[in-house]
């Protein structure tokens, strides 16, 4: 299988006043297409910086980064925006949905920056919402949805432009553990059914346990990289949990 992400000797320095801070000190790894990777490490380990570079939001100081065969290092602002638009889906800890905007329109957002006609945008947004199990809530606004539902809208948004990778930055950090597992179940399903490469940044080992591979960082360096032969099944874990009050009650 071809690598979707190829990183070599990646270095990132920040200048805080006079003193340069070395945040990433030469990192190299590959991520295969269709993999489910968790990136772990304590705060300050450089995993957020790595995440920003992987997401084409930031540029490395040196080293090479190839995403889907495209060398990202030399691209300018607008070219990076284009790559983000076509290749990457983002899921954030704080969902980052537009307030007072319906779920459908939130999901359509990435397509607004393409030439997709509005009819097709609607259709694809609807389909993405169906995939994350939010059929019937297309016209709800974020304030009318529970946290878990909001994160599912965000996942639908990350899916809508058929990205090569989905980058999730602490996607369960703002949710309780049961709903966190629900989110991981969706990720596992997308990974297996659609073959989307998943990269989840987390500091929670319980969440990392659902991935196939876990990369650990410490002090700006790769600490260890382990393959998980038998990741946990989020769907089965959910079945084992006592049937709490269904989440749907939260919303009106």
């Amino acid at each position, binding site marked *: 299988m071809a690598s979707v992400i190829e990183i070599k000797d990646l270095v990132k320095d920040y200048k805080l006043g006079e003193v340069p801070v070395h945040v990433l000190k030469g990192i190299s790894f590959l991520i295969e297409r269709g993999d489910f990777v968790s990136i772990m490490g304590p705060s300050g380990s450089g995993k957020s910086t790595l995440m920003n570079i992987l997401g084409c*939001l930031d540029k490395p100081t040196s080293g090479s980064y190839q995403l889907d065969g495209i060398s990202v290092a030399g691209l300018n602002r607008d070219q990076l925006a284009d790559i983000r638009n076509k290749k990457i889906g983002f899921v954030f800890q704080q969902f980052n949905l537009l307030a007072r905007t319906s779920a459908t329109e939130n999901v359509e957002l990435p397509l*607004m920056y393409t030439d997709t006609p509005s009819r097709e945008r609607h259709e694809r947004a609807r389909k993405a919402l169906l995939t994350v199990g939010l059929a019937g809530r297309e016209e709800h606004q974020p304030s009318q949805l529970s946290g878990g539902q909001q994160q599912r809208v965000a996942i639908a948004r990350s899916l809508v432009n058929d990205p090569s990778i989905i980058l999730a930055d602490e996607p369960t950090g703002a949710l309780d553990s049961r709903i966190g597992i629900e989110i991981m179940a969706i990720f596992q399903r997308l990974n297996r059914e659609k073959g989307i490469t998943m990269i989840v940044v987390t500091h929670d080992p319980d969440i990392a346990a659902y991935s196939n591979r876990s990369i650990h960082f410490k002090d700006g360096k790769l600490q260890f990289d382990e393959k998980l032969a038998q990741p946990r099944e989020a769907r089965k874990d959910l079945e084992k949990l006592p049937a709490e009050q269904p989440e749907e009650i939260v919303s009106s």
Partner: protein
Amino acid sequence: MNKIVGSTRIAFRALEVNRMRSALTMLGIIIGVAAVIAMVGVGAGATARIQQQIQSIGSNLIIVLPGSISSNGVRLGSGATATLTQDDAKAIAAECPSVALAAPAVRGGVQVVNGNNNWATNAQGVTPDYMTIRDYTMLSGQFFTTQDVDAAAKTAVLGETVAQNLFGDSDPTGQVVIIKNVPFTVAGVLTPKGQSPTGQDQDDVILLPISTATQKVLGANKANAQAIGSLMVQAMSPQAMDQAIQEMEALLRERHRILPGLEDDFTIRNLTEVFEAQETSAQVMSILLGAIASVSLIVGGIGIMNIMLVSVTERTREIGLRQAVGAKTRDILLQFLVEAVTLSVLGGIVGIVIGLTASLLISHFAEWSTQVSPLSILLAFVFSALVGVFFGYYPARKAAFLDPIEALRYE
């Protein structure tokens, strides 16, 4: 195109969310545009009124008045002696190539009587050329002819004010009026001209053949039976005015045998020039009013810039998100620019409506004629849109060049 429609929808939604704030921001532009429209309307109305008055005295007009003469070292005032004659008028008309018409006039106060009614007015002895020069038309009847002048016919043409006072609403044509015990047949009534630029009632007048006037009514000047009170001259064209003045001056000096170095015994005045100066001052006033009003439009623009900067700061996370999902620099720029322009254009439209209403109210209650031209409406509209672009650009640029990482992390 698709993107502009999309941006406009986003802009309307963003403005709707903060309805009160948007309305207050627009108020600056509304007041500015309304002030420009109303003030320019007032100025244009004043200019138009002066132009209309200038038209009423006739076009390309030059007036020649008898001047002062020195008699044994005593200088007498203008018009004190009769130095201008009907022969001068004929000579000017015949010999000056830049002069189209020359109409001599004598004038004096008379009491006009019709049965039980009488009216004190200004009698002018004129020739038929006077009608052409002053652009008079007839409300009824006919103007007297050259034959009438030659024959010293007892015929008169009434101004509308005189006709009203003597005959009420009935048509005086063919009736008889008595001036100084001499009966005159009314040949016709002049179409009213209204006020002159100097505020006189131009319709309070009775016109007589110049010959009749000097012989029967006003009494001939003893020194010179041919003397006239004034001479109205029409130049061939507006460009020929100066030439006509020079020709007349030379001719009159020659006819009056004035040696070089001595003063003229007549005065020549370019009437059009005098009134054009008034028109210019009215235009200056209108520009001034417009300029003052434009200042408020610029203040309104600063209000837009202020609110857009606040909006960009408030929506930093939204901007970061849009950038993350693929919005390019120009997408964000366009979004905020469209928002600013939407504010200013909506304000502009409302301002135009209010400005039009205001100028109508000014016309109605202050009885000050206002004129709002479609051009000034268009200009106000375009200007308000430009204000939006100009003052919206800086905040929009600020938004477009935010660092997506910083923006996403912004609390």
